[in-house]
């Protein structure tokens, strides 16, 4: 149903591949990615790749769903664990089990089991994992050394975190930086034994619990009371990422952060350390989230053969060895992940992995809406000084009402 649209060029199959990257710049990692895609076209000269980047994780989910509704979703779809449920549970993707078991199959035991779980339903599997990352605490060793502050430790607490952050804050420099982005700050709640949803996918019981309120209050106070983190408008004014720019000593992020840090002029990769996320009470075990991504095939794809060829190519050891040089994630293949764990930082990532859980979006449909509401909630707390309990109460009622419709 291409209408009068421009058709495939020169009899080639045009394989549409979607991810949440946009236009690449001239960085090393963008170049590596281009090489990987070019390598596929070289291997299969009758297939032309059309990359379809939809930048912004929230926009991405909505646009792919819109494509599905008009029967024109991309052939190959990058599936993010945070929004896997809405795709997997609505019959939008092709079941890959027949293909993985087929002659041109994929050996699933090559992959970390928790990365497979995200898109597995019974015997069916809807995505082949590519990479994943736990959320960790990044710190800038140089700034710690200059302020004579000890590095974060294995089971450090909020009190120790705050103490360090206060000592690191000086003039234009902050101890910590974070934004209203929910995928980042939810870990503070988890490490205070709180949450935003319960096991039934309802918000009202947990999101308004004391531990959740306390966690949101704590991170608000980092900006308003202790002033160890820049406010959102301070960050907007700088127009540069505070941690990458050496203006903040700590930040919570995933492995992908390293792609930014590699090309950031004001920070040396050798100075970048990672640690587990601090816990609210001494002796508590830190928990984190595993943000994973994999490749899936759209239900309406006319080119499932080519799409599968691409997935096989992309998740192969050789390509992953090349691709993971970008630093985008921890490879979902055990062999490559171990191969790459050559420095302390990579080993630290692997050490943190067992404490990771899958994000809510892997199980709960409409989690992208929850994240939108979370951003609004955090905005109201940080920007308009709304009381955290009241803000969370509004958040919970909005979430429950919307998810109730589905």
């Amino acid at each position, binding site marked *: 149903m291409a209408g009068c649209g421009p058709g495939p060029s020169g009899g080639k199959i045009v394989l549409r591949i979607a991810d949440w990257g946009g236009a690449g710049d001239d960085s090393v990692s963008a170049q590596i990615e281009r090489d990987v895609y070019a390598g596929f076209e070289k291997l299969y000269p009758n297939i032309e790749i059309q990359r379809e980047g939809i930048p912004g994780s929230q926009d991405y989910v909505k646009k792919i769903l*819109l494509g599905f*509704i008009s029967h024109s979703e991309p052939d190959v779809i990058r599936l993010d664990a945070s929004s896997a449920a809405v795709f997997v549970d609505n019959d939008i993707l092709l079941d890959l089990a027949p293909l993985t078991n087929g002659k041109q199959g994929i050996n699933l035991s090559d992959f970390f089991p928790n990365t497979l779980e995200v898109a597995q339903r019974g015997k069916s599997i809807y995505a082949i994992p590519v990479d994943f990352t736990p959320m960790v605490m990044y710190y800038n060793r140089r700034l710690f050394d200059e302020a004579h502050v000890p590095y974060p430790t294995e089971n450090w607490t909020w009190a120790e975190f705050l103490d360090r952050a206060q000592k690191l804050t000086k003039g234009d420099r902050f101890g910590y930086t974070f934004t209203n982005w929910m995928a980042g700050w939810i870990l503070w709640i988890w490490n205070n034994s709180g949450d935003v949803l319960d096991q039934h996918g309802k918000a009202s019981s947990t999101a308004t619990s004391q531990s959740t309120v306390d966690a949101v209050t704590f991170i608000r106070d980092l900006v308003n009371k202790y002033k160890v983190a820049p406010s*959102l408008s301070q960050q907007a004014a700088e*127009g540069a990422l505070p941690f990458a720019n050496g203006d903040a000593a700590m930040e919570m992020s995933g492995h992908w952060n390293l792609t930014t840090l590699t090309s950031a002029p004001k920070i040396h990769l050798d100075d970048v350390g990672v640690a587990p996320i601090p816990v609210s009470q001494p002796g508590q075990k830190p928990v984190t989230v595993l943000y994973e991504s994999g490749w899936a095939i759209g239900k309406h794809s006319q080119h499932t053969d080519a799409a599968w060829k691409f997935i096989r190519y992309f998740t192969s050891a050789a390509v992953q060895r090349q691709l993971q040089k970008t630093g985008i994630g921890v490879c979902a293949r055990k062999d490559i992940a171990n191969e790459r764990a050559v420095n302390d930082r990579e080993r630290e990532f692997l050490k943190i992995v067992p404490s990771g859980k899958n994000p809510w979006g892997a199980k709960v449909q*409409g989690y992208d809406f929850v994240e939108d509401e979370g*951003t609004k909630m955090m905005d*109201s707390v940080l920007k308009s000084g709304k009381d955290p309990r009241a803000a969370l109460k509004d958040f919970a009622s*909005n979430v429950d009402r919307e998810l109730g*419709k589905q």
Partner: protein
Amino acid sequence: MKRNRAGWLFTLPATIHLLIFAVLPVGYTIFLSFYNWNLIRDERRFIGLGNYLRIWQDGGFLKSVLNSAIYTAASVPIGAAVALGVALLVTQKVKGVTAFRTLYFLPSVCSQVAIAMIWIYIFLPKKGMINAVLGMFGAPNGTDFLGTSGWAMAALVFMSIWVALGPRMVLYMAGILNVPGYLYEAAELDGATKNQQFWHVTLPQLAPTTLFVVITSTIGGFQVFTPVYMMTKGGPEGSTDVVGYHIYSAAWERFQVGEAGAMSFVLFLIILSVSIIQFRVIGNKQVDG
């Protein structure tokens, strides 16, 4: 009759198009507003007035209507007044006036996406253009215009006046040039000052123009979408969640087309009644003046 047949034949393509893309859709909007219809699963269930009840109870839609009303109530009168002022300025016989008119018109034909990108930058705290200028004069320059719920709507209104100046200005220019000269001569004989002439001659004579400007900008104001989508996504805290964006979000981000249909129909009624009221109020003045 041959004449009737010819008339309908000539209008046929446009009429069919109108039926398919404007008339029938309104009917269909009403139809789907009675269904709970999620496009992802593509199942629909008749729920009567359920959607109307839901959007009434949700509050989010009503708030978005209110936001749109604020946006329109601020941008339309200010925009019209500014355009009238500028039109008075550029209908004088001054050197280079045509060049100025062209310049003033320019923003209105520009890509809204590009304009939005530029203005996000202009509204940035400290180093954005507005704050930089404020800073030059030693005024407080830390306001995050788009990031603060008290400011974001004002920022969008400000931008809209900048964007839409051109067409409104040209309309008023035409109106001003059409005012018969003898009216001013008569007023002058009566000893009216320039100021009085403006209030008692120019403005009443411009009533039809004002009516047109106000009605078209009101319809446009209630439908504004692109700047909100590009610049604030309805935030912060829903303060710029205007009805056009709210409906978009319900239909194309949450795929609840039944609910969105109900919202669209309510919006349709609102636009219709506001237009009728405006027609009455400004239209009557025209008769009185």
